[in-house]
C-alpha cells in the first residue's frame, strides 16, 4: 500500500482523478444499457458486455475496410471522418446484437413471466455463445470458404488473440491538470459520453416513446392498459442500450485501440458496478456511478498497484451493495420526472 502515491501531492491526486474520469465516461455509457434494461424489466442483462464487445470489433473492421491493415499513427483530426463512420457502424452492430439478444434469449421468458434467475442464466448462456462466436469467427468463415477473402477481418488461427485497430490515434496534449496531460482524445471521450447521456436523458424525459418507457418501468400492467405497447418498449430499451454500447465501443477503441473476444466481460462487470453504484434504473445515476467508479478505481490502482485495479472495483461493488444497495442517486427509471 502506498498512500503517498495518491495523496503525496495534490498534483498526483488531480492527475489520477482526471485519468479516472475518462475511463469512467466509458463505463457510464456501457452502464446505460444495464440500467435501461433493469429499469424496465428488473433483469440483469448479463450479455450486454458482448453487445459492447461486438461494437469494438465493428470499429476495428471499419478502419480495416477504409484504411487496410497497414499500421499507421494518425492524429485525431485525420481520423475523425473514419471515426464517425465507425461510430455509426458500431452503433448499428451493437444495436443489432442487442435486438437479437432480446429476441432469442429474453422475449419468451419475459412473456411467460419466468423467474429472474432463469433469465439471468439465459443471458449468461447468450453471453458465452456470443463471445465464443466472435472467437471462432475464422472457423465460420472457413465453413463458407471465405477465410482467405476475409482474412483481415477474421484473422485465421488468431481469432482469439488481441485484435488491434490498424490505425493508432495519437493523442495530442492540450493542457495539463496537475501533471496529467489532458489530450484531445480524452476530451472527445468525455464530451461525447456526456453528450450521449444528455441526449438520452432528454429522450426519456421529453418524448412520447420516453414516456412509454417510463410508464412501463413504473407499472407494466397499467402502462399496457393505457395503450403502451410493452413489447415495443422492451425492444426500444434494448435498442437504446445497444446504441449506447456502440458509442462506448467507439470511444474505447479511440482510447485503447485493441480488443478481443473476451474484452467485454470485465468491462461489463465494471459497468454493471457503475450502474448499481449510481442507482440501477436511474439514467443520471449511471453517469455518476460510472465517473465515480472510474475515479475510485484509478485511485485504488495508485494506492495498491495496477494489478489490484479490478479487485478494487469488485470490492467497491460488494461494499455498495451492502451499505447502500439502492445506489448514490437511488433507483427507478419510472420516477424520472418529465
Amino acid at each position: 500500500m502506498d498512500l503517498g502515491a495518491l495523496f503525496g501531492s495534490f498534483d498526483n491526486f488531480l492527475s489520477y482523478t482526471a485519468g479516472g474520469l475518462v475511463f469512467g465516461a466509458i463505463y457510464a455509457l456501457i452502464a446505460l444499457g444495464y440500467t435501461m434494461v433493469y429499469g424496465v424489466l428488473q433483469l440483469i442483462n448479463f450479455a450486454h458486455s458482448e453487445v459492447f464487445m461486438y461494437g469494438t470489433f465493428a470499429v476495428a473492421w471499419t478502419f480495416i475496410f477504409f484504411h487496410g491493415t497497414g499500421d499507421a499513427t494518425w492524429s485525431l483530426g485525420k481520423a475523425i471522418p473514419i471515426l464517425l463512420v465507425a461510430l455509426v457502424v458500431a452503433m448499428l452492430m451493437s444495436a443489432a446484437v442487442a435486438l437479437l439478444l432480446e429476441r432469442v434469449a429474453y422475449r419468451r421468458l419475459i412473456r411467460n413471466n419466468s423467474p429472474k434467475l432463469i433469465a439471468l442464466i439465459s443471458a449468461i448462456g447468450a453471453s458465452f455463445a456470443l463471445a465464443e462466436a466472435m472467437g471462432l469467427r475464422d472457423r465460420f468463415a472457413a465453413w463458407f470458404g471465405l477465410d482467405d477473402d476475409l482474412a483481415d477481418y477474421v484473422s485465421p488461427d488468431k481469432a482469439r488473440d488481441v485484435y488491434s485497430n490498424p490505425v493508432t490515434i495519437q493523442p495530442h496534449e492540450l493542457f495539463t491538470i496537475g501533471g496529467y496531460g489532458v489530450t484531445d482524445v480524452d476530451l472527445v471521450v468525455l464530451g461525447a459520453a456526456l453528450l450521449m447521456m444528455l441526449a438520452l436523458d432528454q429522450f426519456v424525459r421529453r418524448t412520447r416513446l420516453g414516456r412509454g418507457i417510463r410508464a412501463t418501468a413504473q407499472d407494466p400492467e397499467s402502462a399496457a392498459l393505457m395503450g403502451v405497447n410493452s413489447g415495443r418498449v422492451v425492444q426500444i430499451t434494448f435498442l437504446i442500450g445497444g446504441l449506447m454500447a456502440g458509442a462506448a465501443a467507439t470511444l474505447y477503441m479511440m482510447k485503447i485501440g485493441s480488443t478481443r473476444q473476451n474484452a467485454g466481460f470485465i468491462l461489463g462487470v465494471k459497468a454493471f458496478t457503475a450502474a448499481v453504484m449510481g442507482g440501477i434504473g436511474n439514467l443520471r445515476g449511471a453517469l455518476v456511478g460510472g465517473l465515480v467508479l472510474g475515479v475510485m478505481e484509478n485511485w485504488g490502482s495508485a494506492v495498491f498497484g495496477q494489478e489490484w485495479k479490478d479487485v478494487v472495483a469488485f470490492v467497491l461493488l460488494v461494499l455498495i451493495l451492502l451499505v447502500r444497495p439502492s445506489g448514490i442517486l437511488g433507483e427507478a427509471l419510472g420516477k424520472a420526472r418529465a
Partner: protein
Amino acid sequence: MSTTTAPSKAPSVRPLRRLGLWWDGVVDRYNRQPLAIKIVEIFLVVALVYALPLLRPPVITTQEIDFGGVMFGCAAYALIALGLNIVIGYAGLLDLGYIGFYATGAYTVGVLTSYHWHWPFFLALPLAIAVTMVTGVILGAPTLRVRGDYLAIVTLGFGEIIRICVKNIEWLGASSGIKDIAHPNSIGGGPQPPFDRGGLFDIPRLEWNGLVPSVDHDHPTAFLSFGAIDAVPYYWLLLTALILVLVADRLIKASRVGRAWEATREDEDAAELMGVPTFKFKLLAFAMGAAIGGMSGAFYASGQSGYISPDSFLLLFSMLFVAAVIVGGAGNRWGAIAGGVLVYYLPERFREFADYRLLVFGMALTLLAVWRPQGLLPPRRARRVQRAEEEIRELEGEGATDV
C-alpha cells in the same frame, strides 16, 4: 409450455420429458423391490462405476487421452455439481463464483502440503474443507442479505477476486502456481518408478478389439497406490468421497434443513412467516456448498499432476459448473451428477469439437433456459407441478395463449 398448441416446437421438448418419465420409472421400479434386492442392485451399480476405467467399454472410452484421467475429471465435476446443487437447486441462490471455493480448497492443500509446510494429504483435507466453509460463511454473511440477482454478481466478483489474489500474492505462489503437492498417502508402499508400482496388489485392465474383450496385463493398476502415472486410484478415492457426499446430501435433503431450504427457495417471505429463519438456512446452504467445492478442489490439487496455478481457476469454470447444475436439473442430485459428468465428458470424448464446446454450451444454456428451465432431470416435485399446471390449463382451455 403447452405441447398441444406448439406442434412445431414440441418435438424438441418431448424426448427430454420422456427422459424424465423414464427416470421416474426406473426409480419407481427400484423402490418397489424388497430391501435385499435393492442392496444387491446398488452394490452392483456401484461396483460397475468403480470398475469402469478398468473395463474400458468400447464407444465410451476416450481414445486419445487417458480414460482414467477423464473418469477422474467426471467424478470431480460430479462432486462440484453436487455441492453447487445444494446452493442453486435446494436453496435457490445463484452462485456464479463457485470456482472461488474450489480454488480456496485447492490452495489450502497446496500451501499446507507443499509450498510452506509438508503435511500429509489426509491431514490437510479436513482443514481445507474447514477453511473453505469459513470462507463461505465470511462471504455469505454480508452478501446473502442482498437481492437474489445481486448475489449472482457479487459471487461473480468474488470468484474473480480470488483468482487475482492468488495470482498476485507471492505467499501463494503467484502466477507460477504451486507444484509437488502431496499425493494421498499410498497404502502398501508408494510407487517407486520405474519398476515398483507400489500398492497392495495389481489389477489388470480389459482391452477391447471391436466387441471382443481380452485381459491386458501390461497396464495394471496398483490398488491404493497414488503416483504420477496412473489416474485410476485417484478416481476411486474421489468416487468414494462422492458417494459419501451423496449419502449426506440425501439425509440432509430429507431432513428439516432440506425442507427449510425448499420453503426458502419457493417463497422467502412465506417461509419467514412460518418461522423458518431463512437467512440462517441460506448461510448454511452457502457454507455447505462451499465446503463441498473446497473438498473437490483439495482432491484436484493433490491429483495426478500435483500442480495448481491461477489459470486452473478461471471464472469460465464457474459458468461451466452452473451450466452443469442447470443442464442436469437444479434440485435433483442425480440430475446434478449427470450434468457434471456430461459437461466434463462430452468435450473430452469429442475432442475434435473441443474448440466449439463453449459455443455449444452457451447456446445450450440459453435454449434450455428458454425452452426447458427445469433441466434434463428436474426434481420430481417440479415435474408433478408442471403436469398439474398443464392439466389445469387444458381444462380451462387456455393453452392457446401461451405459445
